[in-house]
């Protein structure tokens, strides 16, 4: 999808600005010269027969190519480990192991049998494997094939002994344009040379996406790269956060992005060096900035950035990250009490296990002999037995976690958050169960904090609609905008084709947030907003205007959101919210918010 500059009247106007919309893979803004990294013309593989006497020589040539590939990869692995990209290094490790693959050894026999040159035999062998892999019905198939393709290309490059275009040779500040980017190439990219990466089909979920995000290189996927090649006359702007690529930018566009880029960098330096924290708007309206954490390690950053507490501790990540291999009461107690003590009386909201759906942990299914679940039988896991639903059915898992939380409660300000509440009855049931567990512990003579606030995640439309009833039974609300968007708009956020429809600032969402805030206000209970909306500066002013007083986002976003807070006025935020609520489409809303944010950034 692209839009031609409306001023262009003929086909080849020199400064025709071209905006290409793709999928955002890695955040950041870059302006650089395009560097086209297209495939070696691997279709022109030479094809010839080998004389019997030269067969062994041919095999040596093949082994040399494998040997050189290994040297490449080992060097790359060392570099990656030094950079601290362990995940990327592990992928490269797998590639190195693959060089020992018996399938590659079989190629030698084939060369002997067919007496054809290595390139032909090798490519046929790889093609066969790719064919077989693609017969499977796995969602991650692309990624599997890419690993094989990547490795085979590397070997072929050594066979051809053609001049290899390496990422190390790329001129500084290049925007690399490739039809696809194999993970090992991405791993070679240095942020100092590669300003950004634009691909035609890379897939944000692939290894490549993971590597570029780790390196902080802006990246956009799903772009018609041939169009850039055909049209590009000068520099290219890549806006990784919004998935935009601008070819032949006009002067004013260039100035705008250059400004954004510089300001972004300057701000980030300023912001992160700030010593005193002030979470108020220009007109003194106080906002609470909280952090989302997944483990105790995140807590250092939370304290460094002066967050007012943890708005969302995703307790299930402890097990998903396998920092702990089991989840006995004592082990959980150790984690919770450590976090509470370290937090030094700052509030810590523990969201009880949100498992099932896209966050699956088999540990839970195995430990329960009484409640076997065949996950494959769930046609629609997002609507299935997950989070509070699962916990209320698997009481032993819930009891263990609650016991650990209650025992740890004396070490700080702990609060319990129930995920995926869709009915007040679930809150009541959980509340009764917590009381039951409390009595159990007290009977055992264990000391527990008297009042432990209990809150509900508001992430299902039914919870929004019954917010008045919910507010009577909860001590606080936490709006999870990610799931709420997905459920309210009936859009799967994991489906790239639905990206356009997944809009957290949809008029529906704004009305829902308003409703929750109003109902909470009537009962005087606090509302935290903890979805991705909270960490996007685009929405900060709007959310404040809608009456949100607590934002919870990943630690690294805290300085960024605080900086926006310090630049806005509550009164104008309210006006903005009012105007926004009158807009009919998310497009208009988005446009207005972008304009607002840009005006805030002008120093």
């Amino acid at each position: 999808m692209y839009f031609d500059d409306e001023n262009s009247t003929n086909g080849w106007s020199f400064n025709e600005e071209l905006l290409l919309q793709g999928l955002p893979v890695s955040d950041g803004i870059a302006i650089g010269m395009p560097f086209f990294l297209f495939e070696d013309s691997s279709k022109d593989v030479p094809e010839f027969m080998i004389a019997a006497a030269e067969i062994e020589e041919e095999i040596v040539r093949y082994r040399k190519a494998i040997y050189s590939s290994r040297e490449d990869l080992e060097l790359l692995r060392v570099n990656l480990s030094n950079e601290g990209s362990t995940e990327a290094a592990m992928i490269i490790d797998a590639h190195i192991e693959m060089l020992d693959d018996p399938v590659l050894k079989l190629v030698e026999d084939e060369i002997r049998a067919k007496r054809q040159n290595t390139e032909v035999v090798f490519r046929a062998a790889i093609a066969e494997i790719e064919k077989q892999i693609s017969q499977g019905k796995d969602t991650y198939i692309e990624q599997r094939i890419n690993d094989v393709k990547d490795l085979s290309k590397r070997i072929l490059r050594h066979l051809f002994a053609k001049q290899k275009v390496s990422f190390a040779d790329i001129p500084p500040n290049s925007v690399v344009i490739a039809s696809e980017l194999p993970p090992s190439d991405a791993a070679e990219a240095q942020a100092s040379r590669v300003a950004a990466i634009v691909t035609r089909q890379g897939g944000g979920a692939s290894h490549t996406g993971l590597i570029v995000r780790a390196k902080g290189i802006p990246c956009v996927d799903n772009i018609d790269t041939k169009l850039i090649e055909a049209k590009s006359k000068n520099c290219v702007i890549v806006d990784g956060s919004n998935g935009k690529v601008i070819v032949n930018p006009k002067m004013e566009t260039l100035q705008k992005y250059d400004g954004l880029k510089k300001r972004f960098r300057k701000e980030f330096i300023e912001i992160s060096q700030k010593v005193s924290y002030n979470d108020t708007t220009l007109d003194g309206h106080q906002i609470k900035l909280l952090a989302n954490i997944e483990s105790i390690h995140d807590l250092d950053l939370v304290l460094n950035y002066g967050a007012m507490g943890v708005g969302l501790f995703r307790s299930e990540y402890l097990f998903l990250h396998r920092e702990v291999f089991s989840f006995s009461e004592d082990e959980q107690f150790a984690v919770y009490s450590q976090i509470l003590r370290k937090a030094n009386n700052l509030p810590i909201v523990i969201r009880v296990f949100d498992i099932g759906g896209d966050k699956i942990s088999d540990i839970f299914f195995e430990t329960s002999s009484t409640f076997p679940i065949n996950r494959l039988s769930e046609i629609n896991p997002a609507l299935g037995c997950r989070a509070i639903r699962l916990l209320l059915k698997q009481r032993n898992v819930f009891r263990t976690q609650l016991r650990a939380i209650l025992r740890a409660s004396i070490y700080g300000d702990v609060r319990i958050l129930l995920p995926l509440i869709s009915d007040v009855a679930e809150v009541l049931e959980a509340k009764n169960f917590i009381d039951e567990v409390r009595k159990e512990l007290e009977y055992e003579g264990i000391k527990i904090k008297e009042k432990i606030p209990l809150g509900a995640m508001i992430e299902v439309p039914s919870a929004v609609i019954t917010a008045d009833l919910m507010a009577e039974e909860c001590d606080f609300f936490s709006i999870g905008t990610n799931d709420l968007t997905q459920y309210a708009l009936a859009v799967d956020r994991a489906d790239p084709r639905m990206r356009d429809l997944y809009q957290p600032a949809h008029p529906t969402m704004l009305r829902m947030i308003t409703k929750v805030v109003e109902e909470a206000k009537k009962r005087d209970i606090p509302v935290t907003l903890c979805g991705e909306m909270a960490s996007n500066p685009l929405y900060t002013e709007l959310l404040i205007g809608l009456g949100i007083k607590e934002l919870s986002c990943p630690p690294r976003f805290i300085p960024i959101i605080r900086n926006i807070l310090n630049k806005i006025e509550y009164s104008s935020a309210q006006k903005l919210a009012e105007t926004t609520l009158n807009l009919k489409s998310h497009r208009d809303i988005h446009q207005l918010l972008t304009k607002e944010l840009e005006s805030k950034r002008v120093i």
Partner: protein
Amino acid sequence: MKLVSKVRVKNRLGLHARPAAVIARLLQECQSDVSLTHQKRTINARSIMSILVLAAKKNAQITITVEGVDADETLQKLIDLFENQFDET
């Protein structure tokens, strides 16, 4: 000695390159012949690419067949790998 056992793929991404490499690496220290079967396809477990061919995703059933002098311990080590999700999530 020939041993056969069924395991389930538990890591989220299934048998992709990394777990396949972990299996192949483990088998370098073992002497037995090891094959993996998934949906009527049987492959040599020492070949990463062949493991990729299985296209086994999360929850797939894999039959491990081990034959050789150290079959017992080899099988146990393999079962542990699957069980521990190849140390991934």
